[in-house]
């Protein structure tokens, strides 16, 4: 691959795509979707879907029997422990490194530096994406060219973590320090310190200009926004917004155990969202055949995008190759904040042209994204700033989106729940609120007049970069989300507090996400019948605590016509489960779930064949229910267990009943959220209390409503954090100031507002039993809804997150003087 050629980003459009002919799109995106007969079930016809069976892994989790990666350490008596020496300067070069003392320490098995034989010297991206990754190959496993405080320089394996840490301390490093840049606006100028030369990066991304620290520039447009701004009958509004560097703060640190198995193959037990991508990326980086690497995901303690990345795996692999011992690397909590990943902080500008009567003629977003020292997920996240929020307003004729993604000498960012949509949603939903106020319009009506409805052809998603593609809208519960959200928050009748200095306001914000990366996903599944009529369900899909395994089982149980307890999921082990892109982009239930449905359908076909033989009735007279096949004609039945034994031990013919399913699609239907925030503000101090958050979500058919509610509540909680906390702050020397959970604004149970989640059911015909995604869309909406609520309550607008009492107070002072 030529270094200079911007590579395809695997379906995530990065350049404006010309509008296709309407006739073609009617054929390509028909409104009527040819779904299987059983895909659209009325609630009373469902046996497992939209029920609330116990989550598959709950019993082992509540008893402590479940094992996360670090819990498996005791399986390896020869295990050694890894620690990493990380850069203490924000920009520079290691000119000398002395490992003599470290190597001489008792209990130290290896000290690796960038030149060590088992350390790959190739460039790669840690982003766990499709191939070729739409992220630049700009980093190395260990590096002597450091670009942030935390860049890995050397790695140690020792008998225990204390010895490993002491050995890291004993390594002497001499740096040549370079000037550094922390501010993205400063970085994006020609005389700023430059992080990369053109030769330093492979797999460069569209719009890169490393002389100005820009890793990518993207742009998309529909119609001509300038034409609308020039009109005399419109009001042009412009607003600017800023978002925090949010930490995933995943409760289980990034952890990997790497070892060589008895077949001389490399095995990684690792806390990941992307086993298959990690296997491929390790194979490329270490020049090991893909077949000789096995990636196994045990229980995972949360990912939220932070583990949609090969963040730590190469280090224990390099160490196990060097020591011939199993190696565990468990990031410390401090490393989680300064050396793993975070949400891209952004400055986003919104502009619109709106007529007096509230017709939006043009909408525009511009994002300046700070990707930090490396560019993982930089372009695709920025693309979603436009590609997720803007399509929501499909009736707007002119749309423009542009983003610059720049490097600074701070820790690198990555994927995080919402993936750019929270940043864009803050700007767009805050902006529309300002427009509505200024023009004396109803903030909900102006949205309703322009938002998506069933039958729309969404042309916007595909031209803004990110994860979108042109799509037909076949399910949309926005009206119902707004209606039920308004009722639950009490939109039409709120009481003001009695005290004069207290003011109450409600804010609203809407959001759309996607369901998987359009045209760039694959999931696969296999189901095997046992003699007793039970099944083993093998799925590549990745449950990182979301309940995905349970959703797979429910989908299979519904399709097969049996109890969930008859299905044993075996998931996320690259040696034993079919291929899957992994847990990201809100894809798992939809993509991997469809693969499960296909596999179960395939198995069901074989079960019916056997039943037909055993009952001596034609297949089309047979149905399955509760683990039995029965004849709709004679009423005779045969149990799955009888079929299981007969199929394996039968006298005349034998067959192991197997079902297979592989699924990919060009579709990415949007789920929707209507968020309401109820806040009381003290005008004397600016202090505010969130009385309640209400969020109504259209996720199609919720496969498991309890789990879906949990996703929504957790997402809103994470969104609340984005609105009211500082996130990861960096001091003027480039050091991350957050060293522990105590330093980070992690909200406890008593500091968290009440959250009411409302499921609005629609039927998405492209999804398994009508489902679409749920877990990301409610992440996007709290910051704008809260900003809008405070504007409503006391008349001041906070555009720079976090919203603090001090900022409110200052603005109140400004308005009164």
């Amino acid at each position, binding site marked *: 691959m030529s270094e200079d050629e911007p590579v395809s980003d695997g379906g995530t459009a990065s350049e404006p795509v010309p509008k296709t002919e309407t006739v073609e799109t009617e054929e390509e995106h028909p409104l009527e979707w040819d779904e299987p007969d059983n895909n659209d079930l009325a609630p009373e016809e469902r046996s497992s879907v939209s029920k609330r069976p116990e*989550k598959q892994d709950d*019993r*082992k989790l509540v*008893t402590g029997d479940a094992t996360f990666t670090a819990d498996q350490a005791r399986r390896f008596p020869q295990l050694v422990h890894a620690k990493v020496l990380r850069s203490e300067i924000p920009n520079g070069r290691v000119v000398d490194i002395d490992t003599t003392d470290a190597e001489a320490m008792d209990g130290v098995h290896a000290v690796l530096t960038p030149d060590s034989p088992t350390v790959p010297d190739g460039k790669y991206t840690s982003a766990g994406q499709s191939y070729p990754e739409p992220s630049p190959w700009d980093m190395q496993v260990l590096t002597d060219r450091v670009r942030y405080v935390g860049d890995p320089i050397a790695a140690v394996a020792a008998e225990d973590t204390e010895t490993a840490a002491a050995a890291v301390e004993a390594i002497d490093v001499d740096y040549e320090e370079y000037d550094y840049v922390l501010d993205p606006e400063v970085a994006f100028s020609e005389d700023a310190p430059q992080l990369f030369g053109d030769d330093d990066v492979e797999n460069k991304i569209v719009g890169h200009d490393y002389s100005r620290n820009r890793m990518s520039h993207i742009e998309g447009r529909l119609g001509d926004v300038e034409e609308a701004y020039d009109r005399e009958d419109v009001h042009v509004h412009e607003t600017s917004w800023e978002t925090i560097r949010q930490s995933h703060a995943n409760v289980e640190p990034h952890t990997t155990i790497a070892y060589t198995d008895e077949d001389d193959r490399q095995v990684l037990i690792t806390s990941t969202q992307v086993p298959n991508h990690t296997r491929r990326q390790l194979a490329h980086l270490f020049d090991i055949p893909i077949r000789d690497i096995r990636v196994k995901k045990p229980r995972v303690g949360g990912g939220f995008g932070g583990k949609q990345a090969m963040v730590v795996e190469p280090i224990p692999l390099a160490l196990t190759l060097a020591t011939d011992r199993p190696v565990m690397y468990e990031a410390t909590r401090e490393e989680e904040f300064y050396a793993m990943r975070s949400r891209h902080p952004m400055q986003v500008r919104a502009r619109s042209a709106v007529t007096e009567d509230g017709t939006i003629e043009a909408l525009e977003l511009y994002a300046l994204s700070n990707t930090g020292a490396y560019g993982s997920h930089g372009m695709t996240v920025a693309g979603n700033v436009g590609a997720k929020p803007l399509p929501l307003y499909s009736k707007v004729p002119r749309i423009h989106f542009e983003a610059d993604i720049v490097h600074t000498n701070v820790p690198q960012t990555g994927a995080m729940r919402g993936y750019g949509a929270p940043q864009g949603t803050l700007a767009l939903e805050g902006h529309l609120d300002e427009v509505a106020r200024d023009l004396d319009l109803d903030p909900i009506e102006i949205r309703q007049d322009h938002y998506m409805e069933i039958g729309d052809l969404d042309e916007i998603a595909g031209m803004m970069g990110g994860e979108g593609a042109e799509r037909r809208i076949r399910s949309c519960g926005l009206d119902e989300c707004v209606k039920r959200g308004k009722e639950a928050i009490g939109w039409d009748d709120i009481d003001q507090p009695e005290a004069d200095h207290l003011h109450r306001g409600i804010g609203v914000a809407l959001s759309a996400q996607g369901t998987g990366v359009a045209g760039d996903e694959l999931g696969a599944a296999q189901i095997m019948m046992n003699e007793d009529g039970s099944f083993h369900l093998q799925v590549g899909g990745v449950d990182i605590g979301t309940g995905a395994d349970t959703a797979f089982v429910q989908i299979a149980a519904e399709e097969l016509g049996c109890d969930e*307890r008859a299905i044993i999921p075996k998931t996320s082990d690259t040696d034993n489960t079919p291929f899957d892109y992994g847990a990201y982009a809100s894809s798992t239930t939809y993509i991997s779930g469809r693969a499960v449905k296909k596999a179960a359908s395939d198995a069901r076909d074989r079960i019916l064949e056997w039943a037909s033989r055993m009952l001596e009735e034609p297949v089309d007279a047979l149905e399955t229910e509760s683990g039995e096949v029965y004849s709709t004609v004679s009423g005779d039945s045969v149990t799955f267990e009888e079929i299981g034994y007969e199929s394996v031990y039968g006298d005349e013919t034998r067959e192991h009943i197997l079902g297979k399913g592989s699924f990919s699609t060009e579709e990415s239907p949007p789920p929707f959220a209507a968020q309401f925030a109820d806040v009381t503000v003290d005008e004397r101090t600016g202090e505010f209390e969130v009385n309640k958050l209400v969020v109504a979500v259209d996720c199609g058919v919720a496969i498991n409503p309890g789990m879906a509610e949990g*996703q929504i509540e957790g997402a809103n909680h994470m969104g609340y954090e984005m609105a009211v906390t500082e996130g990861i702050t960096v001091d003027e020397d480039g050091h991350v100031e957050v060293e522990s959970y*105590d330093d980070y604004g992690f909200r406890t*149970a008593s500091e968290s507002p009440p959250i009411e989640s409302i499921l609005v059911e629609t039927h998405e015909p492209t999804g398994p039993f009508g489902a679409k995604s749920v877990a990301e869309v409610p992440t996007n909406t709290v910051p704008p809804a809260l900003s809008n609520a405070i504007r409503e309550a006391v008349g001041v607008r906070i555009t720079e997150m976090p919203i603090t009492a001090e900022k409110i107070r200052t603005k109140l002072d400004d308005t009164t003087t």
Partner: protein
Amino acid sequence: MNIELELNGQSRTFEAKKTDSLLDVLRQNGYTGAKRGCDTGACGFCTVLVDGEARNSCVVPASKASGAEVTTIEGLGTQRDLHPVQRAFVDSTALQCGFCIPGMILRSVALLEENPDPSKAEVRKGLSDNLCRCTGYKKIVEAVLDASDRIDGAGVAADGGTRVENRTTVGEDAGGTTSDCAGGDCR
């Protein structure tokens, strides 16, 4: 040095280094239900009961714990016979990834022991030394309130848990999603 614990109702003696925390000793000896989240006492994932009180075991020096009565999550119910608090968490869909949950459950047990009929606000306050990233706490609070109804004010009995190493889930393929009760007789 040796550490003696009355662990989940059994007298046990463990070897420990001077610098070891109670969490280190527990995890080294197979009681991995207590999770390591921060090593600074800030997250509560390592919460265990020490002499009936919920403590962050990562900041309890092992030497100081010697002689104490310690209950870990392994000492509550089993998958086939859940403790009422565990049962309530499962029934309320109160957990997602579950990493914080052993600590959260033990904190809840201690909370309910002290205050068998807490208000919602008291539960929120009582759980505030234990972080959760997945749930927004709502269903956890509901689970604890539900558990308080189930327990009916009675004391909590430890049944003497088994160590993880005795369980069949640990083996070469423990990385999968094997469920001990997959046969269907325990739900």
